[in-house]
């Protein structure tokens, strides 16, 4: 089984290296024509199919022999620390692996036509492959350090795909916003790994009692702080409260990337982490309550914001946020299997909806032609709205005031403080430089 696992991780990595070499060898690959597009497509699609076959083999093994952990090798280390490469095959990794590869294959096929003759065709597939590597690493990781590698690969590829369109002002700004939130929340995951080493001297996943999958073993000491760190990391990746504001910004990328990242796969890595760390929430009532509160608030804000969005991608994004909130509530209530089924169904449906979104205008046009008149809104506006409803409406329009809080209040205040230090730094430099210059001018004046 080790060989199949190695194939799973190395097939996309090998494809990635080949694509990088092509970038290196061909100076202007975007102008290389249809044949180059075909080659790139097959370079990505074939490893995905190979991986899908590999996951099917692994799933048969899991059904026959149950979940198992595989120590592939040691990477690096020092006298009392070794970085182990451990992967696990359990029901959770198999479900996530199958879901990911099926959707990745579908989107890979869809993108071939959607991005045909786009200058960024090859760049898209390169980032898509990095994402694929990251996703498989996260799904099959058997140790928190390995999960972090996949987590960060997914993060960086998502950010670069948000900034995919190089000719507009919006994508880099939005990509930066998403990266800041990702990076801040990643600190939670890294700290959790360090704390686990501190308290238990390892961060390997253990087979959970009364469960079908491996998870992070909850230590007696530091349970609360590690649990909070993991929750913090999951909140950032899954756009849970209070980090939901990044998700509509992430829709700047091309439709296929929106589908895989923010509809289907990337946002569901948060619930995956929560399912892996379910022990923590089972052991601590406080963590469980906090998780439930976060889930309810996320679902509420997602639902309210969804109601007032006027573009299809933002509407779908907030739809995802609502469903993620509900999934988190299910995990908090101990319904892990239901949460897993919810993840699979929601990811599949949302990917389909986002892929269909660009052709929605065409659909409306066809319906209007068939009806002979336009599909106008039939509901009349109610002028007598209560103050409470007005308040709720304002909150919904402001998307729960989360962006205002993070961008204007938190970052804005920090920026004012730091820029005041910067001004001080500049003033000192100007004073020292100019003071000397002034002295020289005075001397020159005296000489004159």
């Amino acid at each position, binding site marked *: 089984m080790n060989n199949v696992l190695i194939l799973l991780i190395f097939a996309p990595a090998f494809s990635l290296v080949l694509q990088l070499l092509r970038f290196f060898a061909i100076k202007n690959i975007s102008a290389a024509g249809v044949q180059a597009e075909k080659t790139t497509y097959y370079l990505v699609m074939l490893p995905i199919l190979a991986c899908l076959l590999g996951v099917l083999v692994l799933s048969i093994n899991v059904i026959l022999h149950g979940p198992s952990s595989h120590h592939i090798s040691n990477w690096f280390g020092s006298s009392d*620390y070794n970085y182990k490469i451990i992967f696990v095959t359990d029901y959770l990794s198999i479900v996530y692996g199958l879901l990911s590869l099926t959707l990745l294959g579908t989107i890979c096929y869809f993108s071939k036509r959607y991005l045909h003759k786009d200058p960024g065709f090859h760049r898209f597939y390169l980032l898509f492959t990095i994402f694929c590597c990251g996703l498989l690493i996260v799904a099959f990781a058997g140790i928190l350090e390995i999960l972090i590698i996949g987590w960060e690969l997914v993060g960086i590829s998502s950010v670069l795909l948000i*900034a995919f369109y190089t000719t507009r*002002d919006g994508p*880099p700004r939005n990509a*930066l916003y998403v990266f800041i939130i990702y990076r801040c929340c990643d600190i939670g995951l890294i700290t959790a790994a360090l704390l686990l080493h501190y308290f238990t001297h390892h961060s390997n996943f253990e087979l959970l009692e009364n469960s079908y999958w491996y998870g992070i073993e909850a230590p007696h000491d530091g349970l609360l702080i590690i649990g909070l760190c993991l929750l913090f990391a999951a909140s950032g990746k899954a756009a849970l409260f209070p980090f939901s504001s990044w998700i509509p910004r992430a829709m700047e990328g091309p439709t296929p990337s929106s589908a895989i990242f923010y509809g289907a796969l990337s946002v569901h890595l948060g619930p995956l982490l929560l399912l892996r760390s379910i022990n923590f929430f089972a052991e601590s009532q406080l963590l469980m309550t906090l998780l439930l509160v976060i889930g309810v608030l996320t679902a509420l804000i997602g639902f309210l914001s969804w109601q007032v969005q006027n573009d299809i991608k933002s509407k779908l994004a907030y739809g995802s946020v609502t469903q993620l909130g509900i999934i988190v509530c299910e995990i908090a209530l101990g319904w892990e299997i239901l949460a897993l089924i919810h993840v699979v169904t929601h990811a599949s449906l949302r990917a389909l909806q986002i892929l269909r979104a660009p052709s929605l205008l065409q659909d409306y046009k066809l319906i209007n032609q068939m009806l002979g008149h336009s599909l106008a809104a039939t509901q009349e506006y109610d002028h007598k709205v209560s103050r409470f409803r007005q308040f709720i409406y304002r909150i919904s329009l402001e998307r729960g005031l989360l962006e205002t809080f993070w961008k204007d209040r938190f970052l804005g205040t920090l920026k004012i403080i730091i820029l005041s230090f910067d001004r001080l730094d500049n003033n000192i430099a100007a004073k020292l*430089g100019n003071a000397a210059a002034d002295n020289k001018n005075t001397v020159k004046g005296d000489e004159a």
Partner: protein
Amino acid sequence: MSNVLINHSLHSPSHDAISIANSNNPQQFRTWLISVLSAAAIVMACALISKGLFNEHSNLDLTPYLQSLVVLISFILISVFSPSWSTTNRGFISVLVFAICSCLLIFTDNALTSLGLVFLAYIFLVVSEKNKPVLLRLLIIYGVVIFALFIVSNLITASQGAAFQGLSIAAYLLILGGFPLASWYGKLYENSSTGICAGFLVVQGLFASKSALFIPESSSLIHGIFLIVALLSSLAAAFQVNAKRGFAAMAASQLLFIAFIAMLPFDGLAKAKLYIIAVFTLATPGVILTFGALESRVGHLSLFSPQGNYNSYPRLANTLLFFSLLSAGFPLSLGYVGIDLLAEIVFSHESLIMFGWMVVISLNAIFSIRSFLYLCLGSPEHEENIDMMTSKYYLACGCIGFLFLIAFFI
């Protein structure tokens, strides 16, 4: 081509007509310098192999040889990248002196020798800026203060340990460009040639790795001071509008990180130190050199709004992205390995301080990605201009590949 040359002369802030006029066939000097550095790198690589790099049972400490090899590769990169307007003899002599000082710094374990080498490098930094009066004065004032602090702290007897450490810490924070104490540092990057900045950065990195010689009795308080200054520097970088000034702040925080690592008394940190210093001496200068190459083409590098140079200079943009990722400790790179090893060991002793450093590293990553996103993406304008030269691009790709690949063979 002529259009590009005009752009060079118009936009380069460090353009120095007098220097170019005075220069005595700089291209020849540049070729000579690259040849010397390459020969030294080859000799170092041969020495490494002969002394048993691949012999697991060898008891020799190969760290200095490996460091020298990385430093020499870094200086080859600097020499190849230095744009035409800085190919003056004076500029290249400075770079050569920086290279020699760096190699000597690796092999010395004496505080006074280290100080002398940095002083020499600082003098050549000042000399290379002799035609920029304001910067020159700033450098002289700060230079006098820094080295006076170091000398006084060394003269004070060992019985007055606290005063000795206090002065050394102040001098260290000033020479490593800690924000907002060292005003010279931001101005140097704003006004100086990127080749000179990159060269001096390597010297600073190696001097930072000698911090234990100057601050022998480090404590949590001293680590905390370094952390707070680094945190401020990283925040300043993250909010900075001027790209080169932002880079100066980020470099300062990375230098303080190296100084912090070198001060740690714990066992098992040798590998982590080596990897982190190697990344710092190769990837971080790569970022500033790419900034310089971009600046010579488009002028002032602003991070206020997206500039959009990806379509005009895709090779430069890709190089900047990869160097930035490496400098920020991207997973699967050598920097990631070093940081992971370090964090595992230090976290068990100084949890809060190490957590603070993880925040600093994340803030630096934010600056790195921001500089790529804002300098390279976001504008519909497409100029038919000259992208990075093939030789430079291949060398940069080689360095990037080296820093990724070596992570799997350590």
